[in-house]
């Protein structure tokens, strides 16, 4: 059976299985919730190609993700599984699902903020302390994030400060809550 989008029921099922694999570094999330499994193409009755996109170009978890996907699909009767890395279109933190964001918060990681509509955004230059967020040199949409504070995943306070732009992994920044004083990771907007 072929659906309107050209995806067969089996492909949709296999996509679901590949997407249900947990992320190796954030096991609370599945790859589907992270938004990194792009598509599944059936090449023969028991041969399948999976399109996987990295969060960061150098994401070291990519190989483990590929192996986990292969294992899951082999277990589902696929003899041949090829996981192909695709860079286009570039992954964005906006690809993380709402469920994924909720799970990140429960896991103690402040989820990335979603980007407001792009457009002219006032630029403020000057302060040298690192209270700001997001790259100042980044694209205009990242400036739109300034109006939206990062909330503490523990107590929910919007009163938090940046400690370091890079944290335990490239995709996170280290922050501290000024209300409950707990440090926490923040999934950086990308």
């Amino acid at each position, binding site marked *: 059976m072929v659906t309107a989008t050209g995806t067969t029921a089996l492909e949709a099922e296999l996509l679901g299985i590949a997407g249900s694999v947990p992320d190796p570094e954030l096991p609370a999330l599945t790859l589907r919730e992270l938004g990194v499994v792009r598509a599944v193409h059936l090449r023969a009755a028991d041969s399948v190609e999976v399109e996987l996109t*990295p969060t*960061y*170009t*150098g*994401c*070291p978890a990519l190989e483990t993700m590929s192996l986990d996907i292969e294992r899951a699909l082999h277990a589902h009767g696929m003899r041949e599984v090829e996981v*192909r*890395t*695709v*860079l*286009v*279109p*570039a*992954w*964005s933190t906006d690809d993380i699902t709402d469920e994924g964001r909720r799970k990140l918060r429960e896991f103690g990681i402040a989820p990335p903020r979603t980007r407001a509509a792009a457009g002219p955004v006032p630029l403020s*230059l*000057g302060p*040298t302390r*690192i209270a700001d967020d*997001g*790259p*100042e*040199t*980044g*694209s205009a949409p*990242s400036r739109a994030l300034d109006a939206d504070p990062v909330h503490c995943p523990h107590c929910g306070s919007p009163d938090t400060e940046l*400690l*370091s*732009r*890079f*944290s*335990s*992994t*490239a995709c996170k920044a*280290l922050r501290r809550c000024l209300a409950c004083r707990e440090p926490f990771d923040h999934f*950086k907007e*990308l």
Partner: protein
Amino acid sequence: MTAAPATPVPTTAALALGDDALVLSHRLGEWAGHAPVLEEEVALANIALDLLGQARVLLSMVGDEDELAYLREERSFRNLQLVEQPNGDFAHTIARQLYFSTYQHLLYTELAAGDGQFAGLAAKAVKEVAYHRDHAEQWTLRLGDGTDASRERMQRATAALWRFTGEMFQPVEGLDVDLSALEAAWLEAVGGVLRRATLTVPEGPRSGAWTAGAGRQGVHTESFGRMLAEMQHLHRSHPGASW
């Protein structure tokens, strides 16, 4: 890492950009265990990891990434002399980061807007590099507009590396960008950061006689050979070794 593209890859340009990323990644990795504070160690290692990922994609466009990284001789590397410069003190590392990440951010922004072979990677990498550039700018401001000691060191580092910056705007075969516009944007951006950091914009020459810059032609500075020896010795001693 990526599937073979349908149209021929501009090999010279892919090697130039890939080697820039690979070599700077290795230099930044040398800070592991030595950075002034833990957060900075993690930051530099994360920037190195981003660059390594970019290098893997770029070198894979040309051939086998491991062979290219670990089995080429010094004269076959096409990276800028800037990125191979030793880490020096923290200010030198930050000055090198400021100069290079500003260039890379501007260049990748251009490439991402085009439809060439590098557009896909550039669109992805430019978002990562924006954080690298921001990191370097923030540190330049803190060190320059900091104590007398930090200001002196930052001034010294920006001056010492200045002569390596002209090379970034030499034409590279297969790199279809307006280099003079890129250079003007770079000078404006870097000059702006240095002035905000209360530093003097270096006045020395950036190109021509008595300046550095033939890395794109395979001519490298003395310290690069030692860096390569360290980077390549494991693979050369144990071919095919893996974790």
